């Protein structure tokens, strides 16, 4: 459901005009600007990696991007570190939390959204209104009581503790409901005529049609869980932390040792960036369509 760009120019003249204009001064200027801007985005990341390859003193004395004496010591130190900075554990935790969280979010919110979209039941308006109303509220007001709740339930520093509050989120319900409303009812009616109940219809008719929307929701949810910072910071501890919260502890443990800090940041950035390189088209489209539809 991405807004399709009208890529085909309307007239032949325009086509010729576009092709010719590729090497015009205007285009060159455009490329120059775009490259400059791209540098703005790329240079800090390059600097991050560059610093991670320098020794502690070289970090301050060697000011170039390419280290004179590159070393993997920082990475070695982090990866073999004692208890306080287990980066791989953090990474695993993030992967598990994000994956589980995403799957659960997609499943639960789709189910819920389908009922809100298709079935008129007592209380529907009220409940939906209640859910949507919470979108107005800032997340931080829930931090304190959610912390206490998670504590009561014995879920501090556990995967359910990281996942469940996010799972209560309403965006998915709203988003999928929008989508379901756009599916022609006739298809479902046909299934009903053939004897399928709601659930069967949902599984065999609606879901197969919902691929793109579900994928979009999955991408958004995954990124949100992956990058969730404040909540895990509050409830996690030591090796149980997810990556972003763990990095914060990292900052406390290695103050002013920027080679180490940048190595840690690089390790945290790599999985996402690698994933991004492969899936960027898809990710960008997902976010765009979510934004436009949202």
């Amino acid at each position: 459901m991405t807004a399709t760009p009208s890529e085909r120019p309307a007239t032949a003249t325009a086509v010729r005009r576009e092709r010719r204009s590729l090497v015009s001064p205007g285009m060159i200027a455009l490329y120059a600007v775009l490259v400059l801007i791209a540098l703005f985005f790329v240079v800090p990341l390059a600097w991050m990696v560059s610093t991670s390859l320098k020794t502690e003193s070289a970090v301050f004395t060697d000011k170039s991007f390419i280290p004179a004496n590159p070393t993997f010591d920082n990475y070695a130190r982090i990866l073999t570190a004692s208890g306080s900075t287990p980066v791989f554990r953090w990474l695993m935790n993030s992967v598990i939390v994000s994956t589980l969280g995403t799957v659960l979010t997609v499943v639960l919110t789709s189910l819920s959204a389908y009922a809100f979209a298709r079935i008129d039941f007592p209380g529907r308006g009220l409940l939906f209104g209640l859910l949507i109303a919470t979108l107005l509220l800032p997340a931080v007001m829930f931090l304190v009581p959610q912390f206490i709740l998670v504590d009561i339930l014995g879920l501090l520093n556990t995967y359910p503790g990281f996942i469940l509050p996010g799972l209560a989120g309403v965006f998915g319900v709203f988003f999928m409901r929008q989508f379901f409303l756009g599916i022609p009812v006739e298809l479902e009616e046909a299934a009903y005529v053939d004897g399928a109940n709601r659930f069967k219809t949902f599984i065999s008719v609606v879901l197969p049609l919902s691929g793109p929307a579900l994928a979009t929701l999955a991408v958004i949810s995954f990124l949100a869980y992956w990058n969730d910072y404040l909540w895990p910071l509050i409830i996690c501890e030591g090796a149980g932390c997810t990556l972003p919260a763990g990095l914060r502890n990292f900052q406390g443990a290695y103050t002013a040792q920027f080679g180490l800090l940048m190595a840690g940041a690089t390790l945290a950035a790599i999985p996402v960036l690698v994933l991004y390189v492969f899936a960027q088209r898809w990710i960008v489209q997902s976010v765009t369509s979510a934004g436009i539809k949202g």
Partner: protein
Amino acid sequence: MAEHLWGRGRGPERRSRRAGSPAALVVVVLLALLLAACRGGTDTDGGGGGGGGGGESPPTQVETLDPPESEVTLEFWTPFTGPDGPFMERLVDEFNAEGTTVTVNLTTQAEYYQKLSTAAQAGNLPHVGVVHLDQIPQQSEDGIITPIGDLVDLLELEGGDFTEAVWNNTEWKGERYGVPLDIHPLTFYWNREAFEEAGLDPDAPPNSEEEFVAAAQALNDAGYTGPIWSNHGFSAGLLWASLFYQGGGEWTNDDYTEATYNSEAGVQAAQFMRDLVDQGLHPSGVEVDAELPAFLEGSSGMIVAGPWQLSRLAEGLGDNLGAGPVPQIFGEGVWAGSHNLAVMEGVSDEERQAAYYFIDWITRNATEWARAGQVPARAEVREDSAFAEIPHIPTIAEQVDAAQFYPAFPGAPELHFGAGGATEAVVSVLAEGGDPQQLLDESAQRFTQIIQETKERYDY
């Protein structure tokens, strides 16, 4: 909730005109109120072991310093994430290598007290933990540490074994909670080569106001324009506190109901530091811990930092490193902290015995810990000949008698490090040149209210 990160979807669609049943909502609200009411009145079962804290009867007395008969594994937490960490690791390894029935697992924690608090809620407290001297009242009130009067008796410890200030503060509401492991006073480090280049005697670091300013001037002239401190609690804050003590400053009045650090001593200390900035002898804005790399790479000729940085600085400067007491600019006095060993809530009798054995062992072998830069708390260890041979520490240790600590009540360190506390005011003066008297006044007035609240809450 995870969703606040990507923003939310659009607002409500046109609401369905059908009024839904309000019954559902009412039921939800009632249930929630019911749950909340139950929650509020009772003990939680999600909490940690034992109800701990004041008023409960103390655990069974341990009668011996021997290790227990069956195998016990102890979880031991420390906040030593700095260069001193590996030294404690070695100590623990040495202990484990002795092959007794007790095995110790060491975990180093950043954001230490938050971790302890979360762990206490989850029922995951370690058995033994390091506790700062000034945290003993608060951690005791929070039900995290337990009285160890019996251990103290067994060790036959007395005030004379430690400095008086340390010994007195291990007690809270009549119970002893910690065995002092070390005292860590603020330390003055200098670059011997830099001193020589600046025409200063590397064996005679500055020890008065004139000498200090002269040294700063000389170093600056010789090109060493790096910072002496960073605008941060552990550097500028500690230096200010030392100067504050030197001027006779007191944090509060005797019954802990009024914050008095906005006195003449406090203003004088802040003004002295600011004057250095105004005279161009010190940068005004220095990021957290930036004095360390500056010193290591040679742009600073002298800095103040914690003694726990000793090994890192010694590694970097080698023989070029000078370390010693903080210059007595306004008189005698230096900020100090003290690490203590404590036994946490929820420990069984057997584990307690193992813990006592471990604690005894560690404090007896504290000479090794001294190499990390921590001055052993026990006098007899300091008087030992092995101790005298460790580089730098004996010199740093000379200030032990002048060391002052925070007053002993819950939350006392916050007067210094807390939001809106003294350090914030001082750093504000340094970075932006505000009026020290006014800023310290505002800070102290606010904290007077806070400590009065605290006193009422914990009833002391």
